[in-house]
């Protein structure tokens, strides 16, 4: 083991350029992966917040009596998708509008705004299809004039999240493959630089496992280094976005960040195992 460590550190010292190259390529691949991940994460986060505010507002025709409205509200609150139902009278609607749009408070006159039944859905039922379905059922009440919810932007946001997720996955896998190839190539150079030593090791009876070990450790360390660097780059770019776009982003949780570094280590080990394996088989 001591020898493995010594060989590895010697290898890293002997070729600082090669080492820097492999670490940065792994870092950049994971960085790209991380950026997409961060975008997807933030969209998901935004969606969650938006979803919490998803509200269906069913406007009640003027002159509907309060009992019908209360009965309908009771019916609606029994829908399995529904979390809560609020009845907003004309007066309440006016008060709310005045409060939300202070600048225009004198524009609103009593009686202009209709009464409404405001419906909030349970978590897990806030996707566009479910919202549509519930809205449809609300429309079927004869005294409901109109049903409003943010259908357009809700659909857009969902689509965006799916695109970000798929793009992140596809690009991430592509980048991971590129990293494996690059680390494989750099380890292969390291293997060739030590070809003489390896052939002597084989001659005097060192096992393939023994020969492989320092290269695997080298790949592992480069992978971890690349992973940490990628994490740093991702974090720095998030801070930049925060600062200049004045947009509050969320960062990866500690376990997700650790997973990223582990992915770097995995890429490093797989790349070097492939390179050394190829060399040993070719002998």
């Amino acid at each position, binding site marked *: 083991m001591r*020898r493995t460590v010594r060989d590895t550190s010697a290898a890293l010292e002997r070729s600082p350029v090669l080492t820097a190259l492999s670490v940065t390529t792994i870092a950049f691949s994971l960085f790209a992966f991380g950026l997409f991940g961060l975008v997807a994460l933030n969209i998901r986060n935004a969606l969650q917040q938006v979803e919490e505010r998803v509200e269906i507002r069913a406007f009640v025709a003027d002159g509907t009596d309060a009992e019908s409205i209360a009965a309908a509200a009771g019916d609606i609150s029994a829908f399995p998708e529904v979390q809560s139902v609020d009845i907003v009278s004309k007066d309440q609607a006016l008060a709310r509008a005045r409060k939300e749009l202070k600048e225009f408070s004198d524009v609103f006159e009593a009686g202009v705004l209709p009464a409404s039944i405001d419906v909030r859905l349970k978590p897990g039922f806030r996707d566009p299809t479910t919202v549509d379905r519930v809205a449809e059922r609300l429309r079927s009440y004869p005294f409901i004039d109109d049903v409003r919810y943010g259908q357009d932007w809700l659909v857009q946001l969902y689509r965006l999240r799916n695109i970000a997720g798929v793009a992140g996955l596809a690009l991430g896998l592509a980048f991971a493959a590129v990293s494996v190839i690059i680390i494989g190539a750099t380890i292969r150079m390291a293997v060739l630089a030590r070809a*003489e*030593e390896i*052939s*002597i*090791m*084989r*001659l*005097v*009876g*060192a*096992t*393939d496992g*023994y*020969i492989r070990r320092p290269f695997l450790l080298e790949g592992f360390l480069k992978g971890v280094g690349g992973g940490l660097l990628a994490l740093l780059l991702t974090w720095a770019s998030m801070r930049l976005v925060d600062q200049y776009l004045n947009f509050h982003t969320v960062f990866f949780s500690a376990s997700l960040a650790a997973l990223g570094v582990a992915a770097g280590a995995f890429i490093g080990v797989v790349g070097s195992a492939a390179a050394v394996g190829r060399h040993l088989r070719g002998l």
Partner: protein
Amino acid sequence: MSAADVSGVIRFDRVTKEYPRSGTALQEVSFRVAKGEFVFLTGPSGAGKSTILRMIYFEERPTSGLVRVSGVNSEHASKREVSKLRRRLGIVFQDFRLLEDRTAEANVAFALEVTATPRAQIGPKVSRVLTQVGLASKATAYSNELSGGEQQRVAIARALVNDPFVLIADEPTGNLDERATRGVFQLLREINASGTAIVMATHDLDLVRHADFRTIELNRGQIVYDSAEPRAEGA
């Protein structure tokens, strides 16, 4: 003593080797090497000497026939068994194959370090073999500071350090002048005298003639003469 003495520590039974591009390198070669024996392999370039030696340390496997070396069998030997066997063989080449950026003692120690030898044993073993080959005074010299003859001695010391039962030498004097050749050959005789078998491929017929050792002559992948056999068939 044991059965291995009678049947040989190295056995080739009707060994044929064909290379994909260059065709048949060995054809139905059979011979045995007894414990402690010294055997010369001679014959023109391309006759198959190196191929036989590479088969002894399982760098190559026969296309047909069977090679057995100290109980390891060419049909079944795993990679691990081959590694273990090589720790009990010594191998030297014409071009020495030393690591240039290391000292003589580091080169010898290398063979022990990479085969999981306990650290405490390495130092004493290295100085013992360096003394045996007459290079104790050059232990800390880098291999590129040594003469060809000295480098070959370091290589032989490395081959000896695990106490091999056989030393395999592929033209060990091929790169040496006459004086160095005599010195290295004398060393090989001493090693053999202490009980290690030696199989040595060589072009140096002078050397072969002046030593009274068994000689196997190859031509075009076949044994055309074996001094241990009463009479080779044909002529």
